[in-house]
């Protein structure tokens, strides 16, 4: 176990370092100059020079990199070139929004996906299965922005059930916060729900035809217990893996969803930063995303052993 953890830690550190290096030099290799993007319409040479000097962009790139690493190790992400605000404070406003959106989307997707998947597997060949499959197909193939636009059109403009945009922090007014974020979370969760549903359905079909389920049935257990305690528990392994793997997709989905609903989250911040060549923000975002990815992967692996006792992190297949 200790050796496994060490290996994982080393891999993670290497991944982080590599992504940092690639992104740092990658964004600087892009055409475009943050000073130009920031200068707007008043691009006098003095102004451009002053901006470059203020943000240390007039230094050689290797020097900039050394300063960046030194600062980042101390937990300082620098100052946004676009807004002049420390990146860390931008992250503290943006992260909770995206975290709430993503967590809610995963919950909604898991509930819908697992529920529909179990139903489709148990009611194989009946209308319930066709319905679930049809919904999954729609969820998979319709893009977020289109769904989002439709939702705004019908649920905000036409009926006024939900606000069309805006965000209220959770701590300020929990009810109003949910009112604003439920719709974007549902939209963001659709694709994931569809994937979870299909995977749950096939894993359930797998389990339901396996020996241990037949044994459980033969022992006279009620059908509900057979489905939840035996078949579903094993199928959940797949679901957990999918959620872990789909995290990247969720982040890119959040970018689109946040743009449409005007949520001041991580995704919107990233888009703006890339278009404005806001180096410090892009670097911080990539670093954090990579870290999140690594940490979540690690926990997904640990979860396996909780769900399926046959899997133990010993390095040996059970």
């Amino acid at each position: 176990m200790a050796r496994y953890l060490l290996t994982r830690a080393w891999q993670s550190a290497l991944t982080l370092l590599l992504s940092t290096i690639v992104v740092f030099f990658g964004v600087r290799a892009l055409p475009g100059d943050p000073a130009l993007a920031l200068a707007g319409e008043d691009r006098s040479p003095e102004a451009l020079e002053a901006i470059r000097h203020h943000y240390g962009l007039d230094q050689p790139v290797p020097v900039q990199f050394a300063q960046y690493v030194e600062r980042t190790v101390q937990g300082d992400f620098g100052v946004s070139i676009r807004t002049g605000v420390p990146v860390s404070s931008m992250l503290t406003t943006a992260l909770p929004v995206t975290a709430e959106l993503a967590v809610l989307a995963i919950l909604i997707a898991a509930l819908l996906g697992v529920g529909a998947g179990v139903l489709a597997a148990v009611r194989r060949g009946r209308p319930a299965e066709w319905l679930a499959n049809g919904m999954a197909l729609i969820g998979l193939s319709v893009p977020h922005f289109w769904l989002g636009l439709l939702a705004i059109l019908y649920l905000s403009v036409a009926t006024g059930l939900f606000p069309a945009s805006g965000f209220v922090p959770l701590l300020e007014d929990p009810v109003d916060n949910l009112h604003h974020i439920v719709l974007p979370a549902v939209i963001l969760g659709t694709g994931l729900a569809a994937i979870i549903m299909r995977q749950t359905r096939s894993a359930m079909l797998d389990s339901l035809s396996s020996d241990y389920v037949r044994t459980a049935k033969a022992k006279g257990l009620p059908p509900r217990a057979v489905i939840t305690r035996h078949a579903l528990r094993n199928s959940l392994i797949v679901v957990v893996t999918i959620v872990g793997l789909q995290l990247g997709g969720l982040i890119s989905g959040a970018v689109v969803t946040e743009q449409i609903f005007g949520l001041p989250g991580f995704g919107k911040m990233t888009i703006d930063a890339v278009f404005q060549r806001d180096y410090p923000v892009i670097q911080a975002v990539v670093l954090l995303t990579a870290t999140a990815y690594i940490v979540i992967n690690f926990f997904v692996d640990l979860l396996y052993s909780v769900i399926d006792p046959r899997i133990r992190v010993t390095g040996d297949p059970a």
Partner: protein
Amino acid sequence: MTKLPIGGTSSRKLDPLRTAVAAVAVLCTVVACSPVDSGDGGNQTDNSQPAGQDSFGTPADPAAVKQGGNLVIALSAEPDALDPTLSRSLYSRYVFQAMCQKLYDVDEKAQVVPQLATALPVTSGDGKTVTISLRQGARFADGTQFDSAAVKATLERHLTNARSARKSELGPIDGVDTPDPQTVVLRLKQPFAPLLGALADRAGMIMSPKALQSLGDEFASAPVCVGPFKFAKRVPQNSIDVVKDPNYYEADKVHLDTISWRILTDASIRAANLRSGDAQVADSVSTQDVASLRQDASLSVLQSQSLGYQGLTLNIGNVDGVRTTPKPINRPIAQNAKVRQAFEHAIDRKVLVEAVFNGLHATACSPISPASPFSSPEAQACPAHDPAKAKQLLAEAGVPTPYPVTLLASNTPDTLRLAQALQSMVKDGGFDLKINPVEYSSLLDEQDRGNFELLQLGWSGRIDPDANITNFVGTLASQNVAGYSNPQLDAILTQARQASDVEERKKLYGQAVTLLQQDDALIYLYRQRNLTAVTKQVQGLQVFPDGVIRAAFAGFAK
């Protein structure tokens, strides 16, 4: 049952290189897709209309408006720092309009009128001393008295701050004197007519000296000025809120309690928020949406022709980058004005505006808007659409047709539609136009480096014509990306900048336009209209030719 060996040969093992490459791939994907809005400068999202039909909105009738209410304005781009010295984004002016009054303002005829000053400035005979008398009894939002010392502190900050965006606007100011609390005297090194226009924009916004002292470079975190509203809260990327200021000198004329600007970059989302009632005002409405918005009985669309332009820049000498000495470029279109004139004659501006913008924009043939007090028949002269003449000019220049030209343009949907319309149009004139769409930040970079043959560019416009011309066509000027240099034109522009008489300046700008059309380094195409949609419950909201939404004295109908 699938076995998942962990830590052994799992297919899910982290691959450092792959993750890093994926991160960059994501980055490049984002760069490759179209920005919804190009921010300042180049091509803002639509704002447009045909010649003629301006509709600026009318002031509120106090009897028909109720007190109180929160006005929500859906804004197409995020304002930058709310600091009049540092601000570079046009969108910041919308917020400043409610919160930071200026020495001078602009009326609907694009004429300068006093705001924190009591009269237009008095300029001495030699044009080097400008005296401004100030309003009495005004207070900043923090209670500090507004006086000449405050004006001096603000102007000096504009002139000396390292990152000031105002320094060049204020021109040759040598010093600021305060003979008494109600009088400010500006001493100039040489006469500078555009000064008044600058003082009617961000350079004329006066900041509280007390707040400047305590906040310094952090002024934008809690800006304090004289205005109907004062700063309340800002959530980056999301919203800016201001509340009614009881200290304001005409507080009884203010009806609303609060104004919120909510940043929504997508035009159709802004329109949806307007229809759902989540917002009452939306700026930069797309020309594609105007017709459907007009059909909605509860909405009206304000339109005001901007003072700027959209056009094409030809690279005729920018080899080593902007602001470097122009060098010859070995291409007929760069060397021979006849080829450039042919290109201009191949363009049918009317059809362009009709086809691409549903006729909502005005055609433009010069940098001077007909709405400008400095406009004249010469400034509005226009080379006709004449494909036969275009071909004749190309023949005279000895150029084989179809002559290939590559257009560098921003990859926003509007610009691409414009480029495609141009492409099919100039065919008849003997040109084969290729389109090279790039993302906006890259476009800025390429144009400054001179890596283009033909470029689509725009300018939002300023009140004084000098600010719409000299920077782009003056020899070695800061945004002369064409690498264009004409000493005769430089002399005319310098003369016009130092002349104080409007008629004289009018005449000189007319001559400048004639020269510009002969050389054709810039081909002006159309003038945007600022399109602002407002729900009819809101009264007194106005948009003037400077493009700024004036919401401070609006109110909800009783």
